[in-house]
């Protein structure tokens, strides 16, 4: 992969998260460049909420996000794979038992 291209004059990249209405969580919607955080919020409003898609915006510098590596996904998530007993459907309960 050739990802780490030399630094350019681009403003830093921010990831944008929008809460679409009160009661729902913020959700990642995309990214944008801005000179600083305040400008990132204003740009996020113009780019991602032109049709009232949000009531709240979070922006965070992309560089500040720590992510898991997809190449390690198998190993990382393996511990949960054999634990079906964590789901309610694992337990057989006679039909005549109610409210369980």
């Amino acid at each position, binding site marked *: 992969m050739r*990802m*780490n291209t030399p630094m350019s004059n681009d403003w830093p*990249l921010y*990831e944008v998260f929008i809460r679409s209405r009160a009661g729902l969580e913020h959700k*990642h919607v995309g990214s944008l460049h801005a000179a600083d955080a305040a400008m990132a919020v204003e740009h996020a409003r113009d780019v991602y909420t032109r049709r009232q898609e949000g009531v709240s915006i979070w922006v965070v510098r*992309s560089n500040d*996000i720590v*992510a898991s590596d997809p190449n390690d996904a198998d190993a990382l998530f393996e511990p949960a794979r054999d634990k079906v007993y964590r789901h309610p459907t694992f337990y057989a309960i006679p039909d005549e038992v109610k409210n369980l």
Partner: protein
Amino acid sequence: MYTQGLDSLGKECVHTAAGDTAALEARFQGKVDADKKIEPKDWMPEAYRQTLIRQISQHAHSEIVGMLPEGNWISRAPTLRRKAVLIAKVQDEGGHGMYLYSAAETLGIEREQMLQQLLAGTAKYSSIFNYPTLTWADVGAIGWLVDGAAIMNQIPICRCSYGPYARAMVRICKEESFHQRQGFEIMLALARGTSEQQAMAQDALNRWWWPSIMMFGPSDTESKHTAQSMRWKIKRFTNDELRQKFIDITAPQAKFLGLRIPDPDLVWDEAGGHFKFGEIDWSEFQAVLKGNGPCNRERLEARRSAHENGRWVREAAAAHAEKQRARAQRVA
């Protein structure tokens, strides 16, 4: 996640032997075949990455350059309502460009680099935007035909194998529908107007019809990238399939408007269940693509001067951000 920053976590430069590459490619194609999405940090063949960078950045440039022909009419829209709608539409096109540049950046190209390619004239954008908007009816024809063709092209890309591109397309397609409907409404108003207005609508259709159906790209027999792109599920239908669909749904709309599509060979084929249409003049398409359309030079000039005239704003914003940072550091 739409980010380049994640790469600083390392593990990128693990050298892979040729045999490993074959295994990785098989696994990649298996995921694509199973309709699983490819995400930015997943392994992908270099050619897949380059194809997507080319396609997404061209798409982004088209949105940005596409603001120009319509922007031309903002100050002359016939009513305040039309003006508000047109401003909103042009602003949407800018937004679409932003979504797409973001998606392209996840593949490892910088925004700045794409912008330079556009301004240097080395990047392509949709040749349709190299035609002039001579009358108000052109704004209607663009919404109805050009955005209509774009929607036809873009809806299948919502299911594209590359996650960030597919997600950007979902957002774009939701917004495009308004663009097409406002265009048709403009055409309808003209078609129901005075004889001069009807003539204006007909003239716009005459000029925009052929360029619009050329938007689907060269015929399948000539298209270089189609087979590979379909294998990678970047593309879901061929150029000719999409063109036929577009003509089939648009011809009845023209009839409703009482306008005549400028193709004497256009005829409904009862047996085939499709419209048959005339020969496309591909030499015109090639000429415009090569830079010899009516407005190629003007469009790039407009982009370059916008970029130059905005330089002081970008510099001021960067200086302001730097000053704020320094001040915050001093307080801390």
